[in-house]
Protein backbone atom coordinates (compact mmCIF):
# COMPACT_ATOMS: atom_id res chain seq x y z
CA UNK A 1 0.00 0.00 0.00
CA UNK A 2 1.42 3.33 -1.03
CA UNK A 3 0.47 6.62 0.52
CA UNK A 4 -3.05 7.95 0.00
CA UNK A 5 -3.94 11.54 -0.79
CA UNK A 6 -7.14 13.48 -0.13
CA UNK A 7 -9.20 14.39 -3.20
CA UNK A 8 -12.41 16.32 -3.71
CA UNK A 9 -14.23 15.22 -6.82
CA UNK A 10 -17.62 16.42 -8.01
CA UNK A 11 -19.61 13.54 -9.46
CA UNK A 12 -23.06 14.17 -10.90
CA UNK A 13 -23.05 17.56 -9.19
CA UNK A 14 -22.38 16.09 -5.77
CA UNK A 15 -19.05 16.69 -4.03
CA UNK A 16 -17.20 13.66 -2.66
CA UNK A 17 -14.11 13.75 -0.44
CA UNK A 18 -12.03 10.60 -0.27
CA UNK A 19 -8.43 9.48 0.29
CA UNK A 20 -7.05 7.69 -2.75
CA UNK A 21 -3.89 5.85 -3.73
CA UNK A 22 -2.40 7.46 -6.84
CA UNK A 23 -2.74 4.22 -8.80
CA UNK A 24 -6.52 4.01 -8.31
CA UNK A 25 -8.21 4.35 -11.71
CA UNK A 26 -11.13 6.78 -11.99
CA UNK A 27 -13.34 3.87 -13.14
CA UNK A 28 -12.56 1.93 -9.96
CA UNK A 29 -12.98 5.03 -7.83
CA UNK A 30 -16.50 5.53 -9.19
CA UNK A 31 -17.48 1.91 -8.77
CA UNK A 32 -15.70 0.88 -5.57
CA UNK A 33 -15.42 4.09 -3.59
CA UNK A 34 -18.70 5.73 -4.58
CA UNK A 35 -20.75 2.63 -5.44
CA UNK A 36 -21.66 4.13 -8.82
CA UNK A 37 -21.59 0.86 -10.73
CA UNK A 38 -23.31 2.27 -13.81
CA UNK A 39 -19.86 2.99 -15.24
CA UNK A 40 -18.84 -0.38 -16.65
CA UNK A 41 -15.35 -1.75 -16.93
CA UNK A 42 -14.61 -3.80 -20.02
CA UNK A 43 -11.11 -3.92 -21.41
CA UNK A 44 -9.31 -1.54 -19.03
CA UNK A 45 -7.01 -0.36 -21.78
CA UNK A 46 -9.08 2.23 -23.57
CA UNK A 47 -10.41 0.15 -26.44
CA UNK A 48 -13.98 -0.88 -25.56
CA UNK A 49 -15.45 2.43 -24.39
CA UNK A 50 -17.66 0.86 -21.68
CA UNK A 51 -16.15 3.10 -18.98
CA UNK A 52 -16.73 6.38 -20.86
CA UNK A 53 -17.70 9.26 -18.55
CA UNK A 54 -17.68 13.04 -18.90
CA UNK A 55 -14.67 14.85 -17.44
CA UNK A 56 -15.52 18.56 -17.24
CA UNK A 57 -18.15 17.87 -19.89
CA UNK A 58 -15.91 16.01 -22.34
CA UNK A 59 -16.12 12.27 -22.97
CA UNK A 60 -13.10 10.33 -21.71
CA UNK A 61 -12.10 6.78 -20.81
CA UNK A 62 -12.29 6.55 -17.02
CA UNK A 63 -9.97 3.52 -17.10
CA UNK A 64 -7.18 5.70 -18.51
CA UNK A 65 -7.31 8.41 -15.86
CA UNK A 66 -6.24 8.12 -12.25
CA UNK A 67 -8.83 9.23 -9.73
CA UNK A 68 -6.27 11.59 -8.23
CA UNK A 69 -6.17 13.46 -11.55
CA UNK A 70 -9.89 14.23 -11.16
CA UNK A 71 -9.22 16.19 -7.96
CA UNK A 72 -11.13 19.49 -8.22
CA UNK A 73 -12.72 18.39 -11.50
CA UNK A 74 -16.29 17.53 -12.35
CA UNK A 75 -17.37 14.07 -13.54
CA UNK A 76 -20.69 12.99 -15.00
CA UNK A 77 -21.58 9.30 -15.08
CA UNK A 78 -24.59 7.53 -16.51
CA UNK A 79 -26.27 7.87 -13.10
CA UNK A 80 -26.25 11.62 -13.67
CA UNK A 81 -28.37 11.51 -16.84
CA UNK A 82 -31.89 10.80 -15.60
CA UNK A 83 -33.61 12.86 -12.94
CA UNK A 84 -35.37 9.72 -11.70
CA UNK A 85 -36.56 6.45 -13.17
CA UNK A 86 -39.68 8.01 -14.61
CA UNK A 87 -37.81 10.87 -16.24
CA UNK A 88 -35.13 9.38 -18.45
CA UNK A 89 -32.72 11.54 -20.41
CA UNK A 90 -33.93 11.76 -24.04
CA UNK A 91 -30.98 9.62 -25.15
CA UNK A 92 -31.94 6.94 -22.63
CA UNK A 93 -35.56 7.22 -23.73
CA UNK A 94 -34.47 6.77 -27.34
CA UNK A 95 -32.54 3.61 -26.44
CA UNK A 96 -35.54 2.32 -24.48
CA UNK A 97 -37.99 2.88 -27.29
CA UNK A 98 -35.81 1.80 -30.22
CA UNK A 99 -34.34 -1.27 -28.48
CA UNK A 100 -30.84 0.22 -28.53
CA UNK A 101 -29.49 -2.41 -26.15
CA UNK A 102 -29.52 -6.12 -25.51
CA UNK A 103 -27.21 -7.13 -22.66
CA UNK A 104 -26.60 -3.50 -21.71
CA UNK A 105 -22.91 -3.81 -20.94
CA UNK A 106 -21.79 -1.21 -23.47
CA UNK A 107 -24.81 1.06 -22.99
CA UNK A 108 -23.57 3.45 -20.27
CA UNK A 109 -20.40 4.17 -22.25
CA UNK A 110 -22.34 4.71 -25.43
CA UNK A 111 -24.77 7.07 -23.71
CA UNK A 112 -21.92 9.11 -22.26
CA UNK A 113 -20.24 9.27 -25.68
CA UNK A 114 -23.47 10.50 -27.22
CA UNK A 115 -24.22 13.31 -24.75
CA UNK A 116 -21.49 15.67 -26.04
CA UNK A 117 -21.86 14.32 -29.59
CA UNK A 118 -25.55 15.23 -29.87
CA UNK A 119 -24.91 18.57 -28.19
CA UNK A 120 -22.37 19.43 -30.90
CA UNK A 121 -24.29 17.77 -33.71
CA UNK A 122 -28.05 17.80 -33.04
CA UNK A 123 -28.94 16.55 -36.52
CA UNK A 124 -26.42 13.83 -37.36
CA UNK A 125 -26.44 11.64 -40.46
CA UNK A 126 -26.27 7.88 -40.11
CA UNK A 127 -22.59 7.96 -41.12
CA UNK A 128 -21.82 10.54 -38.45
CA UNK A 129 -23.64 8.46 -35.84
CA UNK A 130 -21.73 5.31 -36.79
CA UNK A 131 -18.47 7.28 -36.68
CA UNK A 132 -19.36 8.79 -33.29
CA UNK A 133 -19.94 5.40 -31.67
CA UNK A 134 -16.96 3.74 -33.35
CA UNK A 135 -15.01 3.96 -30.11
CA UNK A 136 -17.61 1.93 -28.22
CA UNK A 137 -17.78 -1.80 -28.78
CA UNK A 138 -21.13 -3.60 -28.68
CA UNK A 139 -21.10 -7.34 -29.22
CA UNK A 140 -24.89 -7.91 -29.15
CA UNK A 141 -26.78 -5.55 -31.37
CA UNK A 142 -24.81 -5.29 -34.58
CA UNK A 143 -25.28 -1.54 -33.96
CA UNK A 144 -28.38 -1.17 -36.14
CA UNK A 145 -30.75 -0.58 -33.26
CA UNK A 146 -28.23 1.68 -31.56
CA UNK A 147 -28.13 3.84 -34.67
CA UNK A 148 -31.94 3.90 -34.75
CA UNK A 149 -31.96 4.86 -31.07
CA UNK A 150 -29.56 7.75 -31.66
CA UNK A 151 -31.70 9.03 -34.51
CA UNK A 152 -34.77 8.88 -32.29
CA UNK A 153 -32.92 10.55 -29.42
CA UNK A 154 -31.69 13.33 -31.71
CA UNK A 155 -35.28 13.92 -32.82
CA UNK A 156 -36.46 14.10 -29.20
CA UNK A 157 -33.71 16.58 -28.31
CA UNK A 158 -34.24 18.96 -31.21
Amino acid at each position, binding site marked *: *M*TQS*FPVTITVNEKEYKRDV*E*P*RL*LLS*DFLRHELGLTGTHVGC*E*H*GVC*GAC*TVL*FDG*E*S*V*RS*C*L*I*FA*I*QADAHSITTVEGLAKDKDNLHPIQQGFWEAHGLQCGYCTPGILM*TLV*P*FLKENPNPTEDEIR*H*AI*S*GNLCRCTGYQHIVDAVKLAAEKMR
Partner: protein
Amino acid sequence: MKPAPFEYHVPDSLEQALDLMSQYADEAKILAGGQSLVPAMNFRVVQPSMLIDLNRVSELSLIREEGEAIRIGAMARERHLEFDSSIAKHIPLLTEATPFIAHPQIRNRGTIGGSIVNADPAAELPVLMLTLDARLKAQNISGERWIDAHDFFAGMFTTALAPDEILVEIELPYMPPHTGWSFMEVAPRTGDYALMGVAALVTLDENGKCKKAKLVYLNAGDGPVDAKESAKLLEGETLNDALIESAAAMASQKEINPFGNVHTSIDFQRHLANVLTKKALKQAMQRAEENQQ
Protein backbone atom coordinates in the same frame (compact mmCIF):
# COMPACT_ATOMS: atom_id res chain seq x y z
CA MET B 1 -5.27 -5.14 -15.00
CA LYS B 2 -4.37 -2.66 -12.28
CA PRO B 3 -1.26 -0.50 -12.28
CA ALA B 4 1.56 -1.30 -9.88
CA PRO B 5 2.04 1.27 -7.08
CA PHE B 6 3.99 4.41 -7.88
CA GLU B 7 4.93 7.66 -6.27
CA TYR B 8 2.97 10.59 -7.68
CA HIS B 9 3.99 14.21 -8.20
CA VAL B 10 1.79 16.86 -9.70
CA PRO B 11 3.71 20.09 -10.25
CA ASP B 12 1.69 23.17 -11.14
CA SER B 13 4.46 24.99 -12.94
CA LEU B 14 7.03 23.99 -15.54
CA GLU B 15 9.76 25.13 -13.19
CA GLN B 16 8.61 22.64 -10.55
CA ALA B 17 8.33 19.89 -13.14
CA LEU B 18 11.89 20.52 -14.36
CA ASP B 19 13.14 20.55 -10.80
CA LEU B 20 11.50 17.17 -10.15
CA MET B 21 13.01 15.78 -13.35
CA SER B 22 16.46 16.94 -12.30
CA GLN B 23 16.09 14.93 -9.09
CA TYR B 24 14.25 11.86 -10.32
CA ALA B 25 15.05 11.53 -14.05
CA ASP B 26 16.15 7.91 -13.70
CA GLU B 27 13.00 6.61 -12.06
CA ALA B 28 10.29 9.04 -13.11
CA LYS B 29 8.05 8.91 -16.13
CA ILE B 30 6.12 11.92 -17.36
CA LEU B 31 2.34 11.52 -17.37
CA ALA B 32 0.88 13.62 -20.20
CA GLY B 33 -2.51 12.52 -21.61
CA GLY B 34 -1.91 8.98 -20.41
CA GLN B 35 -3.65 7.39 -23.38
CA SER B 36 -0.68 5.13 -24.15
CA LEU B 37 1.09 5.09 -20.79
CA VAL B 38 -1.90 4.18 -18.62
CA PRO B 39 -2.96 1.16 -20.75
CA ALA B 40 0.64 -0.08 -20.56
CA MET B 41 0.58 0.45 -16.78
CA ASN B 42 -2.78 -1.33 -16.48
CA PHE B 43 -1.20 -4.32 -18.23
CA ARG B 44 1.89 -3.85 -16.02
CA VAL B 45 3.99 -3.86 -19.18
CA VAL B 46 5.53 -0.77 -17.63
CA GLN B 47 5.79 -0.17 -13.90
CA PRO B 48 7.31 3.25 -13.35
CA SER B 49 8.13 3.84 -9.70
CA MET B 50 7.22 7.51 -10.07
CA LEU B 51 4.93 9.60 -12.25
CA ILE B 52 5.29 13.33 -12.76
CA ASP B 53 1.88 14.50 -13.95
CA LEU B 54 1.99 17.57 -16.23
CA ASN B 55 -1.78 17.99 -16.39
CA ARG B 56 -1.76 20.94 -13.99
CA VAL B 57 1.00 22.83 -15.80
CA SER B 58 -1.39 25.10 -17.67
CA GLU B 59 1.37 27.07 -19.40
CA LEU B 60 2.10 23.98 -21.54
CA SER B 61 -1.24 23.83 -23.33
CA LEU B 62 -1.22 27.08 -25.29
CA ILE B 63 -1.58 27.22 -29.07
CA ARG B 64 -0.41 30.51 -30.58
CA GLU B 65 0.86 32.08 -33.78
CA GLU B 66 4.35 33.49 -33.76
CA GLY B 67 6.13 34.77 -36.83
CA GLU B 68 5.30 32.48 -39.72
CA ALA B 69 4.74 29.54 -37.42
CA ILE B 70 2.34 28.05 -34.93
CA ARG B 71 3.65 27.14 -31.51
CA ILE B 72 1.85 24.41 -29.67
CA GLY B 73 2.41 23.60 -26.02
CA ALA B 74 3.28 19.95 -25.50
CA MET B 75 0.21 19.41 -23.29
CA ALA B 76 -2.27 20.72 -25.88
CA ARG B 77 -4.93 18.05 -26.33
CA GLU B 78 -5.32 16.42 -29.71
CA ARG B 79 -8.96 17.49 -29.67
CA HIS B 80 -7.81 21.13 -29.44
CA LEU B 81 -5.53 20.74 -32.44
CA GLU B 82 -8.48 19.35 -34.36
CA PHE B 83 -10.64 22.43 -33.80
CA ASP B 84 -8.03 25.22 -33.65
CA SER B 85 -8.79 27.88 -36.25
CA SER B 86 -5.22 29.11 -36.75
CA ILE B 87 -4.04 25.54 -37.35
CA ALA B 88 -6.90 25.01 -39.83
CA LYS B 89 -5.89 28.19 -41.65
CA HIS B 90 -2.14 27.75 -41.81
CA ILE B 91 -1.51 24.01 -41.41
CA PRO B 92 -4.57 22.29 -42.85
CA LEU B 93 -2.73 18.97 -43.09
CA LEU B 94 -2.68 18.79 -39.28
CA THR B 95 -6.40 19.59 -39.05
CA GLU B 96 -7.21 16.92 -41.58
CA ALA B 97 -5.02 14.22 -40.03
CA THR B 98 -5.86 14.70 -36.34
CA PRO B 99 -9.28 12.96 -36.50
CA PHE B 100 -7.47 9.80 -37.61
CA ILE B 101 -5.97 9.56 -34.12
CA ALA B 102 -8.05 6.98 -32.21
CA HIS B 103 -11.48 8.29 -31.06
CA PRO B 104 -12.77 11.61 -29.65
CA GLN B 105 -12.69 10.12 -26.12
CA ILE B 106 -8.96 9.49 -26.54
CA ARG B 107 -8.23 12.81 -28.29
CA ASN B 108 -9.97 14.66 -25.43
CA ARG B 109 -7.09 13.51 -23.19
CA GLY B 110 -4.23 12.64 -25.53
CA THR B 111 -1.65 15.38 -26.03
CA ILE B 112 0.57 16.32 -28.95
CA GLY B 113 3.70 16.13 -26.81
CA GLY B 114 2.77 12.76 -25.32
CA SER B 115 2.27 11.18 -28.71
CA ILE B 116 5.51 12.62 -30.08
CA VAL B 117 7.62 11.49 -27.12
CA ASN B 118 5.97 8.05 -27.11
CA ALA B 119 7.38 7.73 -30.68
CA ASP B 120 5.12 4.87 -31.71
CA PRO B 121 5.90 4.11 -35.38
CA ALA B 122 2.17 3.54 -35.98
CA ALA B 123 1.13 6.92 -34.56
CA GLU B 124 0.03 9.83 -36.71
CA LEU B 125 1.65 12.81 -34.94
CA PRO B 126 5.30 11.74 -35.31
CA VAL B 127 4.69 11.33 -39.06
CA LEU B 128 3.10 14.77 -39.21
CA MET B 129 6.05 16.32 -37.35
CA LEU B 130 8.44 15.10 -40.07
CA THR B 131 6.09 16.08 -42.86
CA LEU B 132 5.66 19.59 -41.48
CA ASP B 133 9.35 20.13 -40.57
CA ALA B 134 8.54 20.69 -36.91
CA ARG B 135 11.04 21.92 -34.36
CA LEU B 136 10.73 20.53 -30.88
CA LYS B 137 11.75 22.42 -27.77
CA ALA B 138 13.25 20.30 -25.02
CA GLN B 139 13.96 21.74 -21.61
CA ASN B 140 15.75 20.62 -18.48
CA ILE B 141 16.66 22.51 -15.35
CA SER B 142 19.79 24.02 -16.90
CA GLY B 143 18.26 25.26 -20.15
CA GLU B 144 16.49 24.58 -23.39
CA ARG B 145 17.35 23.35 -26.86
CA TRP B 146 15.47 23.05 -30.13
CA ILE B 147 15.57 19.70 -31.89
CA ASP B 148 14.67 19.28 -35.54
CA ALA B 149 11.92 16.63 -35.89
CA HIS B 150 14.17 14.85 -38.39
CA ASP B 151 16.73 14.32 -35.61
CA PHE B 152 14.22 13.58 -32.88
CA PHE B 153 12.95 10.08 -33.60
CA ALA B 154 15.66 7.57 -32.79
CA GLY B 155 13.85 4.27 -33.33
CA MET B 156 10.97 2.28 -31.91
CA PHE B 157 9.57 4.23 -28.91
CA THR B 158 12.89 6.07 -28.67
CA THR B 159 13.71 9.77 -29.00
CA ALA B 160 16.63 12.16 -28.74
CA LEU B 161 15.42 13.50 -25.37
CA ALA B 162 17.84 13.19 -22.47
CA PRO B 163 16.41 11.48 -19.36
CA ASP B 164 15.90 14.77 -17.51
CA GLU B 165 14.46 16.69 -20.45
CA ILE B 166 10.80 17.48 -21.02
CA LEU B 167 9.36 18.23 -24.44
CA VAL B 168 7.66 21.56 -23.80
CA GLU B 169 6.74 23.08 -27.15
CA ILE B 170 6.35 22.26 -30.81
CA GLU B 171 6.93 24.80 -33.55
CA LEU B 172 5.27 24.19 -36.90
CA PRO B 173 6.07 26.56 -39.77
CA TYR B 174 3.06 27.61 -41.87
CA MET B 175 2.62 25.43 -44.90
CA PRO B 176 4.15 27.32 -47.85
CA PRO B 177 1.88 28.93 -50.46
CA HIS B 178 0.76 26.80 -53.44
CA THR B 179 0.97 23.70 -51.30
CA GLY B 180 -1.47 20.83 -51.44
CA TRP B 181 -1.74 18.14 -48.79
CA SER B 182 -3.19 14.75 -48.13
CA PHE B 183 -3.35 12.28 -45.27
CA MET B 184 -4.55 8.74 -45.84
CA GLU B 185 -4.46 5.55 -43.86
CA VAL B 186 -6.03 2.11 -43.85
CA ALA B 187 -7.09 0.64 -40.51
CA PRO B 188 -9.09 -2.52 -39.85
CA ARG B 189 -11.66 -0.46 -37.92
CA THR B 190 -12.17 3.28 -37.46
CA GLY B 191 -9.80 4.54 -34.79
CA ASP B 192 -7.62 1.44 -34.70
CA TYR B 193 -3.91 1.55 -35.38
CA ALA B 194 -3.50 1.83 -39.14
CA LEU B 195 -1.89 -0.98 -41.14
CA MET B 196 -0.29 1.69 -43.29
CA GLY B 197 -0.62 5.45 -43.66
CA VAL B 198 0.94 8.32 -45.55
CA ALA B 199 1.14 12.09 -45.28
CA ALA B 200 1.88 13.90 -48.53
CA LEU B 201 2.72 17.50 -49.37
CA VAL B 202 3.19 18.97 -52.83
CA THR B 203 4.33 22.56 -53.40
CA LEU B 204 4.06 23.91 -56.95
CA ASP B 205 6.12 26.70 -58.52
CA GLU B 206 4.65 29.47 -60.68
CA ASN B 207 4.86 27.26 -63.78
CA GLY B 208 2.91 24.49 -62.11
CA LYS B 209 5.95 22.27 -61.64
CA CYS B 210 6.54 20.45 -58.41
CA LYS B 211 8.94 22.56 -56.36
CA LYS B 212 8.90 20.42 -53.24
CA ALA B 213 7.30 17.13 -52.29
CA LYS B 214 7.08 15.10 -49.10
CA LEU B 215 5.99 11.57 -48.42
CA VAL B 216 6.10 10.28 -44.84
CA TYR B 217 4.74 6.91 -43.73
CA LEU B 218 3.41 5.39 -40.52
CA ASN B 219 3.69 1.76 -39.50
CA ALA B 220 6.36 1.48 -42.14
CA GLY B 221 9.51 0.99 -40.08
CA ASP B 222 10.91 1.59 -36.61
CA GLY B 223 9.75 5.22 -36.63
CA PRO B 224 8.07 7.66 -38.98
CA VAL B 225 9.59 6.95 -42.42
CA ASP B 226 10.48 9.94 -44.60
CA ALA B 227 10.68 8.69 -48.21
CA LYS B 228 13.07 11.37 -49.39
CA GLU B 229 14.30 9.70 -52.56
CA SER B 230 10.78 9.05 -53.82
CA ALA B 231 9.83 12.66 -53.11
CA LYS B 232 12.93 13.82 -54.99
CA LEU B 233 11.74 12.00 -58.12
CA LEU B 234 8.87 14.46 -58.25
CA GLU B 235 10.75 17.69 -57.61
CA GLY B 236 11.37 19.96 -60.59
CA GLU B 237 8.90 17.97 -62.69
CA THR B 238 5.40 18.45 -63.99
CA LEU B 239 3.53 15.75 -62.11
CA ASN B 240 1.80 13.14 -64.20
CA ASP B 241 0.52 9.61 -63.69
CA ALA B 242 3.76 7.95 -64.77
CA LEU B 243 5.85 9.96 -62.31
CA ILE B 244 3.40 9.40 -59.48
CA GLU B 245 3.46 5.69 -60.33
CA SER B 246 7.29 5.60 -60.10
CA ALA B 247 7.37 7.51 -56.83
CA ALA B 248 4.76 5.20 -55.31
CA ALA B 249 6.64 2.11 -56.51
CA MET B 250 9.94 3.40 -55.14
CA ALA B 251 8.53 4.43 -51.77
CA SER B 252 6.55 1.25 -51.25
CA GLN B 253 9.25 -1.16 -52.45
CA LYS B 254 12.52 0.54 -51.49
CA GLU B 255 12.14 3.23 -48.86
CA ILE B 256 9.71 1.84 -46.34
CA ASN B 257 10.54 -1.13 -44.17
CA PRO B 258 7.29 -2.45 -42.67
CA PHE B 259 7.36 -5.39 -40.27
CA GLY B 260 3.93 -6.93 -40.78
CA ASN B 261 1.81 -8.03 -37.83
CA VAL B 262 -1.09 -10.30 -36.99
CA HIS B 263 -3.40 -8.20 -39.17
CA THR B 264 -1.23 -7.82 -42.24
CA SER B 265 1.66 -9.29 -44.18
CA ILE B 266 4.59 -7.12 -45.19
CA ASP B 267 3.56 -7.51 -48.83
CA PHE B 268 0.09 -6.19 -48.09
CA GLN B 269 1.59 -3.20 -46.26
CA ARG B 270 3.74 -2.45 -49.30
CA HIS B 271 0.70 -2.82 -51.53
CA LEU B 272 -1.24 -0.38 -49.34
CA ALA B 273 1.66 2.08 -49.34
CA ASN B 274 1.71 1.97 -53.13
CA VAL B 275 -2.02 2.58 -53.52
CA LEU B 276 -2.20 5.23 -50.77
CA THR B 277 0.81 7.11 -52.17
CA LYS B 278 -0.80 7.44 -55.58
CA LYS B 279 -4.12 8.56 -54.13
CA ALA B 280 -2.48 10.97 -51.68
CA LEU B 281 -0.20 12.53 -54.30
CA LYS B 282 -3.12 13.07 -56.65
CA GLN B 283 -5.17 14.72 -53.93
CA ALA B 284 -2.23 16.88 -52.82
CA MET B 285 -1.50 17.89 -56.40
CA GLN B 286 -5.11 18.82 -57.04
CA ARG B 287 -5.25 20.92 -53.87
CA ALA B 288 -1.98 22.63 -54.75
CA GLU B 289 -3.42 23.54 -58.16
CA GLU B 290 -6.55 24.92 -56.50
CA ASN B 291 -4.37 26.94 -54.14
CA GLN B 292 -2.55 28.44 -57.08
CA GLN B 293 -5.62 30.00 -58.66
